[in-house]
């Protein structure tokens, strides 16, 4: 054990034994000659230590988060993939241009962006009263429990959630059978494979991304502020629009950005629930990858375009909704 006392390592070289009387494996590790030698080298060279602490996470992030996106960006400009062996690939922007010229590309693209904005709006309207109820009308110790009750479905796979929507909406699904049984209609109503199904399914999958930030924002408003507004004679509506709403703009912005980003890229729901006139852009992208390798550059270009546009619109939403910093308390 004395060999540990060399160099800069302070004595004593042993950790106190653990309570259970057995030595902790890490304490044993420190006694190991190979480990001790390695440890001495690392400690003697701050550069090496820094490389370990900084280098490994940075390497991970760069390799798996950054390089794939750069690779996708690169391929989106190639006129052929895989590249010709002899001359190498040519560079082109035709894949991006096709977004403006091809009906089958720009129509779903615009449709998806409009759809995602509509989903943000509907989610906001649906989630706001629920969030308000949870944050201000429920005893504190029940708030989280009641919130978890509605977040339970979000742990379940998107595929199963879309499947559950089919069972609800199909011609022999729960809604149609209930309607016929109660005599409202005599024959099934077509709920599936149209905007009703895609919209409903997307809201079902994304509404919690709006609910949770709204809840957090409303919960933070001190009750005294609301009481003061009422005491000063504000009606319920006035209080809501002039006190509550301005105070939760941060939460609205977070929810809007999250919902917008998720619903532009949503794939499972439209694949299972949309019809030919309601296909979304993610389906157009995916189709490029099932045709052949030749369509990959186009698929990559569409992905880049979708992500970039979604980020831009999300940033715009954020800018419009979130209060400017200088006014924030």
């Amino acid at each position, binding site marked *: 054990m004395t060999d540990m006392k060399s160099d800069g390592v*302070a*004595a004593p*070289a042993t*950790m106190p034994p653990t309570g259970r009387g057995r030595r902790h494996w*890490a304490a044993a*590790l*420190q006694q190991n000659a190979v480990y001790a030698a390695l*440890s001495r080298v690392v*400690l003697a060279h701050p550069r090496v230590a820094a490389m370990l602490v900084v280098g490994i*996470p*940075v390497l*991970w*992030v760069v390799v798996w*988060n*950054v*390089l*794939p*996106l750069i*690779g*996708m960006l690169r*391929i989106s400009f190639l006129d052929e993939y895989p590249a010709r062996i002899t001359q190498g690939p040519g560079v082109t922007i035709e894949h991006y241009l096709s977004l403006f010229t091809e009906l089958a590309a720009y129509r779903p693209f615009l449709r998806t962006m409009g759809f995602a904005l509509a989903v943000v709006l509907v989610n906001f309207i649906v989630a706001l009263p*629920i969030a*308000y109820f949870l944050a*201000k*009308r*429920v*005893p*504190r110790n029940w708030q989280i429990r009641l919130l*978890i*009750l*509605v977040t*339970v479905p979000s*742990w*379940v*796979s998107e*595929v*199963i959630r879309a*499947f*559950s*929507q*089919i*069972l609800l909406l199909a011609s*022999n*699904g729960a809604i149609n*059978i209930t309607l016929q049984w109660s005599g409202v209609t005599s024959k099934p109503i077509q709920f599936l494979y149209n905007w009703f199904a895609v919209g409903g399914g997307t809201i*079902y999958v994304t509404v919690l991304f709006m609910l949770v930030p709204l809840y957090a924002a409303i919960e933070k408003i001190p009750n005294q502020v609301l009481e003061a507004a*009422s005491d000063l004679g504000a009606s*319920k509506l006035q209080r809501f629009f002039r006190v509550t709403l301005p105070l939760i703009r941060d939460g609205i912005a977070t929810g809007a950005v999250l919902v917008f*980003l998720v619903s532009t890229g949503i*794939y*499972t729901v439209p694949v*299972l629930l949309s019809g030919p006139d309601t296909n979304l852009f*993610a389906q157009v*992208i*995916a189709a490029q*990858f099932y045709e052949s390798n030749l369509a990959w550059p186009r*698929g990559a270009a569409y*992905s880049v375009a979708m*992500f970039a546009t*979604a980020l831009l619109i999300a940033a715009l939403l954020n800018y419009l909704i979130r209060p400017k910093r200088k006014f924030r308390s």
Partner: protein
Amino acid sequence: MSGPLNRAPGQAGAVSWLGALYVAFVLYMLLPLTMVVLMSFKDHKFMGFPVTRWTTQWYVDAIHDQEFLNALAYSLMIAVIATAIGLVFGLWSAVLLSRRKLFMRGVLFALVCMPLVVPGIVSAIALRIFVESTGIGTGAVAIIIAHAAHSVPFIALMAMTRLSSMPPNLLESARDLGADPFVAFIRVALPYLMPALIGGAIFSMLSSFDDFIRAFFLASFSPTLPILIFSRLFTGLSPSLAAISTMVLVVTIVIGIFAERFVRSKNAR
């Protein structure tokens, strides 16, 4: 519990209709999944309502369904390995990012959190192109990488939150007692971080187990469980699918509730 404690004045009547809206919302969230459970007990070849006769035969079929069992094992294996990798790199990132005066900390933080904002289909396609061009190829390795990369920010954020509440002198004491930095971290910081890591690991496993979009683009011939369910949705809606989905659903929810309670009880302490 006699009633809401923090009700604002003049709002007595508002409880009822807001409460009714909440109940409607709960039904909206939970009823569709209840349909799946109901359907799994239907004694008929085809799905759909009304259900007149009931059976548990679909469950018996499911546990003898080799394709289902293979997909289940495959998904579990991927979830466990991806979570293990995600834990190592998530924790490592958290330790790095918890240094306040790190050079370009903001940039690094954004890079670590990137998978949270990139839509699933975009990151799936980017990784698909990446694994093809680097020779990794599609299959289990590609899916594991995708899931681990997705779980790193979750685990890192949870670990960072916990690290920020750790008394800084704990590690110094361990160092003074002779532990080298790594051993001090293992014996002092790791036990302190354990609740966050266990919580993060469970959520990472659930999100890997439930993931469809990444596995869909990165799988080769073996399907993961969500892919199997997805492909069977196209080949005819049989209640056997509902039975499989119900099993997945129940296990997911039980684990999720357990994780939620666990994390909350530890954080409250």
